[in-house]
């Protein structure tokens, strides 16, 4: 039977604001099964990074997790002390952050930074550390690994830096890797190389959670996808169903926008209106004000996630439950 590396149930992250509280992560549940790559897609500010940070135990005050469960290989992460979390990060779960430069120490040689991770989490003898690092550099496609070992981050190109970060994230063979916009800062030719590398990272007993706003990146890497809008999951499905048969009006709008550009339509599809501010969400569906078919009910009553097909769920009043 397939088991899950990561399970998130009904997660809420809350920040105080002038209008009471806002919820950048609002009742999010998701699974990353072993051996699979799972994506979170959605537009800027919808809560993708915040969800990842919650898993990493990196929600800082005044933000806090108010509800929900996060389990990594069955272990309840919300019960961990900060010390336990520290030993978990980098060994059991690691994250590639959206801003690549923040993940590297500018005054420390690239090789030494990766060594530091090994020193912290393993008892590999001092004498073997350097060789381990050079091996992993080679594995992630860093050319001339011995030379790069001694480089400072600013001496490396963007693509090489991202490979060092990936090396650092995977050297302890974590069960779960989270990649937050792993290629956004890179050029397309280098992005293509990194995407190919990331595809090969997942093995039978690990999982990869990829966050991106780029449907091209999601289509390339993921087996299963969650679509987020204003803090909530609005649709989830296997990758093929999501692209072939999107159901939520927001997902459809997103697919049309990308599709019309790809087809080079005369006038490109857009989604009318703008994403509502988290402080001014309607009581019901957060998308209803931009939705063609929004009704009174949509505005007042929050739709639940409705199962519309095998493994396909949609948060919309217009949907019919499968088999009804």
């Amino acid at each position, binding site marked *: 039977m397939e088991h899950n590396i990561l399970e998130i149930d009904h997660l809420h992250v809350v920040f105080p604001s002038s209008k009471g509280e806002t919820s950048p992560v609002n009742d999010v549940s998701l699974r990353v099964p072993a051996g699979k790559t799972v994506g979170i897609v959605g537009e800027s500010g919808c809560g993708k990074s915040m969800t990842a940070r919650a898993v990493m135990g990196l929600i800082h005050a005044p933000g806090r997790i108010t509800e929900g469960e996060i389990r990594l290989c069955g272990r309840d992460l919300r019960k961990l002390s900060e010390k336990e979390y520290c030993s978990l990060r980098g060994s059991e779960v690691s994250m590639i952050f959206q801003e690549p430069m923040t993940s590297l120490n500018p005054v420390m040689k690239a090789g030494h930074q990766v060594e530091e991770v090994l020193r912290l989490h393993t008892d590999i003898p001092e004498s073997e550390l350097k060789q381990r690092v050079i091996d992993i550099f080679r594995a992630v496609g860093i050319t001339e690994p011995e030379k790069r070992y001694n480089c400072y981050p600013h001496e490396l190109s*963007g693509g090489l830096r991202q490979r060092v970060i990936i090396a650092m994230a995977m050297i302890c063979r974590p069960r779960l890797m989270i990649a937050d916009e792993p290629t956004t800062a890179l*050029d397309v030719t280098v*992005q293509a190389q990194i995407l190919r590398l990331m595809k090969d990272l997942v093995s039978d007993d690990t999982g990869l959670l990829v966050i991106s706003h780029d449907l091209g*990146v999601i289509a390339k890497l993921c087996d299963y996808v969650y679509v987020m809008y204003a803090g909530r999951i609005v649709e989830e499905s296997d990758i093929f169903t999501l*692209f072939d048969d999107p159901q939520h009006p927001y997902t459809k709008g997103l697919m049309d926008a990308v599709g019309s*550009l790809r087809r080079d339509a005369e006038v*490109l*599809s857009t989604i009318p209106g*703008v994403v509502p501010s988290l402080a001014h969400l309607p009581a019901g569906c957060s998308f209803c004000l931009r939705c063609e078919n929004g009704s009174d009910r949509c505005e007042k009553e929050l739709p639940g996630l409705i199962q519309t097909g095998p493994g396909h769920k949609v948060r919309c009043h217009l949907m019919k439950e499968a088999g009804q």
Partner: protein
Amino acid sequence: MNRLLLEGKNLSRDFPAGHGRKLHAVTDISLRIYEGETLGLVGESGCGKSTLGRLLIRMLEPDSGKLYYRGNAVSGISEKDFHPYRRDLQMIFQDPYASLNPRMTVRDLIAEPLEAWHVCGSREETTKKVLRLMEAVGVPGEFLMRYPHQFSGGQRQRIGIARAIALDPALIVCDEPVSALDVSVQNQILNLLNELQKNRGMSYLFISHDLSVVHHIADRVAVMFLGKIMETGYVKDIYESPQHPYTRFLLNAVPVPDPHRREDTVELLKGEPPSPVDLPKGCVFHTRCPYATEQCRNEVPAMRPAGRTEAACHYPGVS
């Protein structure tokens, strides 16, 4: 073909790179922009797109090379003599946040170019014109007295566009105008730029690293690598039958938003672009090009017709 609007000939520009060394941002580029067309300029980060765009409207002076506007030589002339042309040459920037003064209202931001050029007789007339411009770019007139931070990214970009079109320019250099925006907002701005061009007939130099965006908006495309143009041609010809190997690798690298087509079969470019401080001898692309020969390592290829495009390659069309 429409009339020639702006032409750059053999433009070069270096920047100091410390230790007395030079960074070659733009090397010997010749480029034409015609009336009413959109020329797309694509290439990877740091290849010199913004520098070239700024050289073409004299926001930056070249080390060498010439500039012609409607047939008049405008590169050697004084700033005072060039001043009348400035009105015709405008720019839109990537970061709508950084390019708008946060302490100015939308009214004052859009009125600024109008007032600098004394376009309207009175303050009331200026405000009326500002309102017409806001309508043209789809920002509601009721927001006249708001400040930039009270707008979304897409709305801020619309305000930047209103400023750029206020003087009815002949050319707008659009430097990554949609790169910071979400896709649905990006599409709104692209539609707006297309519509404005239809109504007003200006030309765009549209700088972007996003090949699908350029495919949509451009009539012709110039592909840049490491300070040089590798290939130019009509958009259809560049995308359907690229002649320069770099163009082909660039097009192949774009992830297709279709999971049915995700199998990795295409050949990817290896390595990383060389440094613009130590330019490779010969063709600047030869260190990454799988087809490079002795000739490529020694001789700079000239731009010449190849297939239906023009390419700077000793072996156009190789594969």
